[in-house]
């Protein structure tokens, strides 16, 4: 499939998650289809944190939800721990989801306002029969502590009584309750101030080291991504632009969109405000994506070839894959 390719796939036995040719489309009227995710392939190996960055609306959340079959993709495979989730009957899917948890992008609205914090975190533990009442309560307290909340102060309150960042932390505690093998985080720290953010990231790094937690980490914050990830995948309009280890990607981005992203990171120093060139042009519509390279309408390096042929991912330095006809060298 186009613009994506599979050169970056490692196909090892260590893969916790392998996604092949994932396609998600939404029909919004009789003859209008949004191509949210178009033939996406990637794998995540054990203990890895694959960060996904990309333009707003490029299909990250849709992809994450399709992996969890919420709803299932239009086509493609989602192989988790050796099983293709797209082929799994509903009952088995429920139990597969206990080992793959998701933290959703909108923290406040993703928590049921009728339940107390205690009920919210206890719910999965109770459904899956994890321990006695006392053991579960102990676990709930520990989880809340680890996300920086004082159990006594929060247990009996409901989500609407909390700030955005507090809700975010409650959903993280809930997602970690069942000790998942894999965690899919959709903007998990975007609502948090830097100190709490650091605390959560350190917790996730710790879980990775001690429990071998594997993560898919969607974020717009490139500094956060750099701190947490072991591999970064850059997406634009439903396709992959570049895949590389963070230190490589940040020092020598090869795709023109990756460079535009890095140039736009705000600098936390009022004396160093260089107004960089903003990315030019209008973002194209996912209903009618450009031919060839999808970034070509806004790319400074585009040539005639870029409109004709879709670039395929290829390895240009060890571990660095780029889908571009004229990569930056």
């Amino acid at each position, binding site marked *: 499939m186009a613009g994506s390719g599979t050169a970056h796939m490692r196909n090892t036995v260590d893969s916790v998650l392998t996604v092949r040719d994932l396609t998600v489309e939404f029909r919004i009227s009789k003859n209008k289809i949004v191509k949210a995710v178009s033939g996406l392939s990637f794998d995540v190996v054990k203990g890895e944190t694959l960060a996904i960055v990309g333009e707003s609306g490029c299909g990250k959340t849709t992809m994450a939800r399709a992996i969890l079959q919420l709803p299932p993709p239009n086509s493609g495979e989602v192989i988790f721990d050796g099983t293709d989730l797209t082929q799994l009957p509903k009952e088995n899917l429920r139990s597969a989801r206990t080992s793959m948890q998701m933290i959703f992008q909108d923290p406040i609205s993703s928590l049921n306002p009728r339940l107390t914090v205690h009920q919210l975190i206890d719910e999965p533990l109770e459904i899956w029969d994890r321990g006695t009442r006392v053991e579960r309560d102990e676990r709930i307290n520990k989880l809340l502590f680890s996300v920086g909340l004082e159990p006594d102060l929060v247990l009996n309150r409901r989500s609407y009584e909390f700030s955005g960042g507090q809700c975010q932390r409650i959903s993280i505690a809930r997602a970690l309750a069942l000790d998942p093998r894999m965690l899919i985080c959709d*903007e998990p720290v975007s609502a948090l101030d830097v100190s709490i953010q650091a605390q959560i990231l350190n917790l996730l790094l710790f879980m990775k080291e001690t429990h071998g937690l594997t993560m898919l980490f969607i974020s*717009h914050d490139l500094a956060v991504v750099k701190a947490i990830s072991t591999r970064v995948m850059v997406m634009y309009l439903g396709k992959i632009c570049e895949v590389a280890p963070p230190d490589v990607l940040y020092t020598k981005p090869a795709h023109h969109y990756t460079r535009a992203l890095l140039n736009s990171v705000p600098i936390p120093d009022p004396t160093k405000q260089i107004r960089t060139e903003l990315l030019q042009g209008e973002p194209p519509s996912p209903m009618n994506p450009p031919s060839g390279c999808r970034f070509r309408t806004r790319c400074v390096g585009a040539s005639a070839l870029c409109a004709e042929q879709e670039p395929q991912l290829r390895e240009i330095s060890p571990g660095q894959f780029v889908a571009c006809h004229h990569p930056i060298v």
Partner: protein
Amino acid sequence: MSSLLSIKNMSVNFDTPRGSLEAVRGVDIEIPAGMSVGVVGESGSGKTVMCRAAMGLLQGSTVNRTGTVIFDGHELTAMSKEQVRELFGSGMAMIFQDPLTALNPVRRIGVQLSEGLRVRLGMSKSDAMARSKELLELVRIPNAAAVLKSFPYQLSGGMRQRVMIAIAISCNPKLLFADEPTTALDVTVQAQILQLLRELREDLKMSMVLVTHDLGVVAGNTDYVAVMYAGEVVEYAPTKKLFADMRMPYTEALLNSIPRVDHKSGTRLTVIAGRLPDPTNRPVGCSFAPRCKYAQDKCTTDHPELKTDPDGHIYRCWFPIGESL
């Protein structure tokens, strides 16, 4: 310099089963006309409650607000709910932190966006729809015509956030409260939106209160910064001054925890040990004392008063940074 908004000694308490929760206490803040003021502070420190209370948006029997809020010559705290609402749209507007809870899930984006234009600016239905499309284009949403007909659930997180921004700026407000307006946007769109907000400030002399945890966004988009901790404004200074010459130990700790793109990957981040005090049971002394590395005995017994340096730099600390003991 005249203030567009001035908040005097405002406190907000929520009645909770465990007692009164003091979310905002004794906040004094002036938003000068045409300026952009950043608000930063720990999650739960009262940033959202302060903005909502200033706009009179907190309602219900469990909420108690005291103090005065004066906006553009109107004393909001002495006005009825209906009178305050008259000022929404072209007076004050707010970009809410969670677009999903702020947008109506069962109404199309076009209806939600054109409503204000029709009610507040008296536009005809078709003019309002045309302007709505322009507004969506202004906030860089591709395919604006299709998005007008969509429901919120059909949009990505960042698209919803931009719809909220479009609604907030639609009636050219004099004062915009922007509560974490760009958290769901990638950095290239974020840069474009921030530029749009800058242009609105320049062209329409709009003032802005920008709540954000992204200190990079603060650095490049604000004239002043207010730092909040445990419901109080603990430091207020021109942005350049705050970054170069902060007086509050909390501000220093906050700036030290910023993750940076120029750090190596996998680097552990600096955290501020401990957590915010219980808002139903605040410590008597300085709220930051249990976590402050400069704390002295006095800090645990006496609540620090606001001090103002000759250059207008305001802070609340007994032993500020840069002062020898």
